[in-house]
C-alpha cells in the first residue's frame, strides 16, 4: 500500500514536501521574511542570493525576489489546507471485532495534537443496541461526512470540507457559536471551555492540518491527521493501534491499510459486511465499520487494564 501510494503521488508529495521546507524556512527566520523559491516557481529572478537556515539546520541560498513576508506564507498554507490533497478521497475502516479498548489511539491522538487530557478527538464507546444483542467497543473518530451538517451550519466558514474529503476547522476563524456541535449527530466536536495552555513548538505556525494549538473558545475535532497525510504517513491513531483495528486508505485507490496488512476496500466491505454508523441520517460518513463478529477478544477484556476513571464511564453502558 505504502509503495503504491508513493508511486501514485510521488510528484505531488515531493512538491508538497518541498513546499513544507519552504514554509519551515519562513518560520525559522522569525523576523518575518522567508524564501520559498525552493517551491520552484517560474518567476523573474533578481540574481541576488540570500543565505537562510533551513529547519534541518542546513544553510541554503534563496533568490531575493522569492522572499515573502511570513504572513503571506501562513495565508498560503491556510489556503493549501483548505484545498486539501486533490485526487484523493480518504476513508477509514474500523474493525469492531478487534477492538479491546486499549485506548492507544486516544493517547496517540492527544499527544500528536497536543490536546489537554480531557479532550478526546477519538472517543471509545461501549455500545449495545438492545439487551438481546451483543455489546461491543466502538472507536469513534470524526466521520468526515460527505454531507457534513457541521459545515452546512457554520456561519463563518471556519469549518470546511476539502477536495480529499477531510473536514477541517480553522480555529483562527471559528467564533465559537457551537452550532456545529449541535449540528453533528455523532458528538464528534469538542469545545475549548478554558485555555488549553498549549505552547506552540518553536518555529511552528498554526496550521489547521495539525490543529496545534487549540484555542480557548473555539471548537476542535479529529482531523484525520491531515498533516501526516500530506507527508504520506498514516494517521496517528492508525499507527498506534496495537490490535490493527483501524484501517486507513483512499477510496479512489480502493485500498486500506492498518500498517500491517493492506487490503482491497471493496472486498473487505463485501466479505465482512461493512456498514456506516446511522446510515439513515444521510450524512454519508467516510468512516466504515466492520461488525464485531468472530472477535479476537471478549468484550469484558476491554475493561481489564483500564484505570478506574475509564472504567467508571462504562458503568451504565447498556442497551438504549
Amino acid at each position, binding site marked *: 500500500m505504502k509503495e503504491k501510494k508513493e508511486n501514485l503521488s510521488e510528484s505531488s508529495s515531493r512538491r508538497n514536501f518541498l513546499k513544507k521546507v519552504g514554509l519551515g524556512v519562513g518560520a525559522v527566520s522569525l523576523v518575518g521574511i522567508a524564501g520559498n523559491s525552493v517551491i520552484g516557481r517560474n518567476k523573474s529572478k533578481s540574481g541576488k542570493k540570500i543565505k537562510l537556515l533551513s529547519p534541518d539546520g542546513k544553510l541554503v541560498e534563496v533568490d531575493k525576489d522569492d522572499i515573502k513576508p511570513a504572513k503571506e506564507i501562513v495565508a498560503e498554507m491556510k489556503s493549501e489546507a483548505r484545498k486539501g490533497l486533490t485526487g484523493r478521497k480518504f476513508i477509514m475502516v474500523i474493525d469492531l471485532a478487534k477492538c479491546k479498548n486499549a485506548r492507544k489511539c486516544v493517547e496517540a491522538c492527544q499527544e500528536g495534537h497536543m490536546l489537554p487530557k480531557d479532550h478526546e478527538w477519538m472517543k471509545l464507546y461501549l455500545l449495545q443496541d438492545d439487551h438481546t444483542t451483543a455489546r461491543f467497543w466502538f472507536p469513534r473518530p470524526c466521520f468526515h461526512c460527505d454531507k457534513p451538517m457541521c459545515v452546512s*451550519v457554520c456561519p463563518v466558514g471556519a469549518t470546511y470540507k476539502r477536495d480529499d474529503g477531510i473536514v477541517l476547522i480553522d480555529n483562527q476563524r471559528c*467564533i465559537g457559536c457551537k452550532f456545529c456541535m449541535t449540528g453533528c449527530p455523532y458528538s464528534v466536536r469538542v469545545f475549548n471551555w478554558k485555555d488549553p495552555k498549549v505552547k506552540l513548538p518553536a518555529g511552528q505556525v498554526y496550521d489547521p492540518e495539525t490543529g496545534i494549538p487549540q484555542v480557548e473558545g*473555539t471548537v476542535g475535532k479529529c482531523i484525520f491527521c491531515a498533516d501526516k497525510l500530506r507527508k504520506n504517513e498514516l494517521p496517528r491513531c492508525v499507527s498506534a493501534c496495537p490490535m490493527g483495528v483501524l484501517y486507513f486508505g483512499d477510496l479512489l485507490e480502493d485500498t486500506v491499510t492498518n500498517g500491517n496488512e493492506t487490503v482491497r476496500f471493496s472486498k473487505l466491505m463485501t466479505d465482512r459486511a461493512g456498514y456506516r454508523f446511522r446510515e439513515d441520517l444521510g450524512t454519508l460518513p467516510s468512516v466504515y465499520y466492520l461488525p464485531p463478529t468472530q472477535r479476537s477478544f471478549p468484550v469484558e477484556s476491554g475493561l481489564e487494564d483500564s484505570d478506574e476513571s475509564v472504567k467508571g464511564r462504562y458503568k451504565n453502558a447498556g442497551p438504549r
Partner: protein
Amino acid sequence: MFGNQEIMLTEKKLLQDLTPEIETTGIRWYITFLLFFLIFCVGIYALIQQIEKGHIVTGMRDNVVWGLYIVNFIFFMGLSYAGALISGVLHLFHTGWRKPVIRLAELLTVISLVIGPFFIFFCIGRLDRLPFLVIYPRIQSPITWDVIAISTDLVGCFLFLYLALIEDFAILRDYSDLHVKPWKKKAYKILSLGFTGTEKEKKILSNARNVMAAMIIAIAIIVYSVLAWIFGVTLQPGWHSTIFGPYFVIAAVFSGTGLLIILMWIYRKVYHLEEYITKRHFVNVGVLLTIIAAFYGYFTFSDYLTKWYGSIKMDSMLIDKLFHDYYALFIFANYIGILLPCIIIAFPRFRTIRNITIAAVIAVTALWVNRYIIVIPTLETPFLPIQDTRPDWIRYSPTWIEWSLTLAGISVYGMLFMLVSKIAPIISISEMKEEDKIEIMK
C-alpha cells in the same frame, strides 16, 4: 357590552395626566433603578469572570453546548416578535381599545429586541470575532439568516416605534406648561422632525405607520421562524421537527401577550393610570392570551404526541427523559402554564385585574421553562450515549455566572423601560386624542 360611557378628553387633560412622570422623578424610581443597576453590576462582574476564565465557569459542557443563554435569547426574541405582532395587528385593525396599551406593546418589542442578542454574545466562545459574522458570512447557515433577519427586524421595529412617537414629541415640544430641563425640550424639538400636525403630514405619517405595521408583522413571523429553524434544521431528536417554525411563532405571541399584561399592571399601579388602563383592557388582552394559549397548547400537544406515540428510539429516549428527569418542569410548562391562565381568564368570575395578571405571570414563566426543556434535554440525549465520569458533562446545571447574567438581562430590561418612561409618555397622547375623544370603560 361593557356599559360604555363616552367622555370627551381634551389634549390638555391628557397632558396634565401623563406629563408629570416626564417632569418629575420620585425617590422610588431612583431606588428601583439603583436596585436594577446593582443586579446589572453583578452581571458585569460575572461576565468579566467568564471572559477571564473561559466558558468553563458556565454549566455548559461538550454535550449541552447551549444553556441558559440560548434559552434567554429565544425567550427575549420571542417577547419582541410578540410585541411586534400585537402592536402591528392592533394598529392595522384599528382596534378601538388598543390606544392606551399600544405604546407599551411597541416598547416591549424594541426593548426585548435590544436585550435578546446580548445573550448570544455571552454564549459565543470568541466574542472578539463577532465581526466575522459579517466579514465572512455563509448564507447556508441559519445563523446568517438570523443575523440578517434580526438586524432587519431591529431597524423595522425602531422605525415603527419612532413613527408612533413623532406626534407625541411634537405635542410635548409645543406644550408650554411642560416643566422639564432644557435638554429634554431640545430633544423633543429635534426628535419631532418639525412635525406641525398639518393634514398632509398626518397623512404621510399614518401611511408610513400602516406600511411599517404590516411589515413588522411579516418580519416578526419570518424572524422567529428562522430562529426556530436554527433548532429545526439539525438532526437532533426533539428539535428536528417541521412544526417548529409556527410553534415558535405562537409561543412567542403567547409570552409577549403575557408580558404586555404584566407591564400594563405595573404601569397602571406605579404611574396611576387607572383611568386609562382599565379592566376592559386586561380582559381583552387576557382573552387574546387565552386564544393564543389554546393554539400554543395544541401545537405543544401535537408535537409531543407524535414523538411519544411513535417508536423511534431517540424520540422515546427524549420523552422518557422529559417525563422523568424533567417531570416537574414539564408539568409546569406544558400543563399548568397553559391550562391555568386559560381557566382564570375563561371564567368571568375569576376575571379580576389581579387574577389576569397572575395568569400572565404564570404564562410567561411557563414559557421560559418550556424553552428550557426544549433546549436542554435534547442536548442531554445525543445519538451516541454520554459515557463520562464527570457529572457536569452528563447533566447540565446552570452556574451563578449564567443566572447573574440572566438577571442582569432582566434588570436592563427594567432599566430601559424606566428610562423610556421618563422621556416619552407611556400612553400615546396622539393616539388618545385622535378626534379629541376617547372611550373610557367604567
